[in-house]
């Protein structure tokens, strides 16, 4: 892998937008350390070893007609409003629309931004590169992405829809690297949906998102992942919240063969608040690993986290949620929960909710459960005449639906509910009930 990346650099450096020096430094630093291995605590349960040997290629130009057809297949119906669409890392202008944006809300192609303004401070503003090394690979070789900026006091209420579509190629194992930067200035609010989907042969997606939330701003972020069963996706979401800023993140994983998400939120000033909602539904032989980390670095910061998982087939899910309270960060409230439903005999879940606390005036809690459907509820439904499979499906759906209802955007929730039902046995019958 390593050599192929150097080759790409030599071939394409000139074509990549932005600061070549910054990209080259990122690449060299990444190559010097290599991919994370299972010997590292943070990667204990997830191996990227197969990428070591893989020959990755950067995607070339896409066929517009093919791209447009694929977009039609995957885009969430009914989601009006501003939209940027990327296929295999390239912007597809005919699929985008940015009409009628409120003044002060800017949605741009990141490549465009970097071409026009070649400064090094657009990238890697928030991400902790030493902790999350894969971001360096993205910085070095990403082709395009989006920047969403809400100016001071602007309410960008309509969700900004960013569709990242990966079409796998039988000829080459493509490395697609979406990149998103969200900036909310003081008292601004903005909502961004990142929708990652894919089809076709195997591909590797390495996404990086950075969120800068200035004092009093509100950011709502969705990362919806519906990759093809052959795709591997790693994604790093990094956010920094200033005084009284609020961030809500929804992370939904319904696809992918190997998925790893790292969410790292830093609450750097009093009053900052974050809420993380997560849902993963793993099937077949898929492997989905969610690592979240919330750093309470200032007093009176708060966080809530609720991740739910449904596991089926021979799949494996990993959850690692860390809450850190720094010294002198008093009056903290942090609550976290992770609940898992195991549907098959061959699946496995590894969960580790962590608290690391260096201040005393705190109220922190976490909980984790692994289990099956409530036997009483199951019995109740069956006693009302449902057959067992339907009853199970219904209860499983209800378990997942609690996270989906929190999404708050009807077309999106509808789409995801549909996908979840489709994953359950007896889905036709279930549709009648829901």
């Amino acid at each position, binding site marked *: 892998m390593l050599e192929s990346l150097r080759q790409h650099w030599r071939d394409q450096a000139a074509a990549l937008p932005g600061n070549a020096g910054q990209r080259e430094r990122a690449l060299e630093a990444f190559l010097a350390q290599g991919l994370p291995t299972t010997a590292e605590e943070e990667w204990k349960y997830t191996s990227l070893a197969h990428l070591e040997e893989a020959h990755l290629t950067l995607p070339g130009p896409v066929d517009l007609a093919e791209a447009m057809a694929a977009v039609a297949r995957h885009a969430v119906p009914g989601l009006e409003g501003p939209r940027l669409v990327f296929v295999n890392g390239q912007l597809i202008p005919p699929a985008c629309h940015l009409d009628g944006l409120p003044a002060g809300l800017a949605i741009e192609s990141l490549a465009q931004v970097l071409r026009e303004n070649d400064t090094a401070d657009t990238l890697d503003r928030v991400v902790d590169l030493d902790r999350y090394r894969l971001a360096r690979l993205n910085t070095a070789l990403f082709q395009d992405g989006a920047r969403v900026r809400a100016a001071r006091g602007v309410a960008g209420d309509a969700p900004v829809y960013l569709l990242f579509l990966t079409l796998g190629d039988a000829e080459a194992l493509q490395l697609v690297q979406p990149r998103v930067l969200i900036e909310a200035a003081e008292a601004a609010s903005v909502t961004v949906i990142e929708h990652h989907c894919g089809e076709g042969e195997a591909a590797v997606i390495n996404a990086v998102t950075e969120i800068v939330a200035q004092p009093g701003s509100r950011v709502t972020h969705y990362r919806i992942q519906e990759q093809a069963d052959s795709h591997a996706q790693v994604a790093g979401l990094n956010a920094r919240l200033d005084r009284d800023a609020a961030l809500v993140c929804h992370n939904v994983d319904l696809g992918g063969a190997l998925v790893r998400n790292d969410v790292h939120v830093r609450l750097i000033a009093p009053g900052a608040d974050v809420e993380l909602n997560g849902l993963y539904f793993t099937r077949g032989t898929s492997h989905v690993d969610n690592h979240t980390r919330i750093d309470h670095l200032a007093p009176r910061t708060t966080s809530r986290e609720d991740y739910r998982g449904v596991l089926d087939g021979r799949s494996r899910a990993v959850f690692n949620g860390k809450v850190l309270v720094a010294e002198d960060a008093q009056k903290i409230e942090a609550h976290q929960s992770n609940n898992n439903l195991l549907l098959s005999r061959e699946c496995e879940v590894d969960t580790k*909710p962590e608290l690391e606390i260096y201040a*005393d005036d705190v109220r922190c809690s976490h909980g984790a459960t692994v289990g099956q459907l409530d036997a009483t509820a199951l019995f109740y439904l069956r006693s009302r005449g449902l057959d067992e499979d339907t009853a199970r499906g219904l209860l499983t759906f209800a378990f997942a639906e609690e996270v989906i209802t929190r999404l708050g955007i009807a077309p999106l929730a509808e789409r995801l509910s549909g996908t979840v039902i489709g994953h359950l046995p007896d889905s036709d019958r279930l549709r009648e009930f829901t």
Partner: protein
Amino acid sequence: MATNEHELEHLVSRKYKHGFFTDIESDTVPPGLNEDVIRFISAKKEEPEWLTEWRLKAYRHWLTMPVPKWAHVQYPPIDFQAISYYSAPKRPEDAPQSLDEVDPKLLETYDKLGIPLHERARLAGVAVDAVFDSVSVTTTFKEKLGEAGVIFCSFSEAVREHPELVRRYLGSVVPTRDNFYAALNSAVFTDGSFVYIPKGVRCPMELSTYFRINAANTGQFERTLIVADEGSHVSYLEGCTAPMRDENQLHAAVVELVALKDAEIKYSTVQNWYPGDEEGRGGIYNFVTKRGDCRGANSKISWTQVETGSAITWKYPSCILRGENSVGEFYSVAVANNLQQADTGTKMIHIGRNTRSTIISKGISAGRAQNAYRGLVRVLPTAEGARNFTQCDSLLIGDRCGAHTFPYIEARNPSAQIEHEATTSKIGEDQLFYCLQRGLSEEDAVNMIVNGFCKEVFRELPMEFAVEAQALLNVSLEGAVG
């Protein structure tokens, strides 16, 4: 391979015959560790050849192991070549001759804990007349156990008197290669306790090291092996609430428990080794491997611990739930004050059907201490119907300490039910004010609240131990408030 091993054995025994340690009569070996030292220890204890070999194998593996670094503790590297691995009991004339020669601070603590006068001398290492109160106690005690067929003796004695039992079970729960400190212990352990409860016997009394034969100088590398045969029951108490005088900084004990079908072992520990002074100077490094194997169906192993001592504690009493319907329990209170560091917890490995485990952990941090809970609940595919409940609470006293929770849950059976709950909070101002308003002093109020916080664990301790543990907690937290 077999030839190689044979050759090796031959080489080893030949060397031994040649006796490179001319001074076999010596009471102490110079600091340092090599195969000769291990042979010396083994020879000193007149051990059979298989045990010498067992030790050497452990040693050779230990050499290949890195020092573990994953625990949430910090300390300077230990120089294993600077430790003396064998020293005979101190001669009476070297010990303090009376309590007057003992550090008054130590005596003050004994007073607060209400340690009986005759016990204070023994604990402080005063040379006590051999006709000591507990000798008669020990005799009646031995008779009573003998009638029941219970074997309770020092590890060395067990090796001599019951070699077949020792050979069968030693290392069967904690293999020599298990971890760095277990390997070291296997190579150099000097003594410890051995317990065997025969089939169907309910041990007629609590077995306590308080009255232990050969209690002195089991040393820093202690080895305990408890085997409960089918349908038997035993409760074992380890340690003592009084701070023991000890000059060895590194303690790396190994405790192995084996519970066969329908057997039950209850193992209670109160650990109060020297924690170092308020600036963190001195203090014991307590790196212990404790593990119980519920080998038979319906067996049960229960660990209860109150950990207040040591500069660094690194300890995870665990249960391997192999037998169907077997039960593992872990109840723990860990207190860290001043500059103490504790990284403690448990592992529950569910292998058998319908195995159940309960974990109740109460961590208290004060001063500038760091206190971490680290636990693993693993449910293997074979563990149909496994259940675990974990409650893990941390209490913070003061704003310079830390409390950390690292629970690992690995579930591979869909019928498993695992619940983990953890909370971290400081002593509530409301609670404190309520007690003060009722007329209690701040110190009493804190003690009362802390003891309440720990109650679920204390009630698992044998009665007299529980009372002592409460007193100990209060002494350990002295000066933490205000």
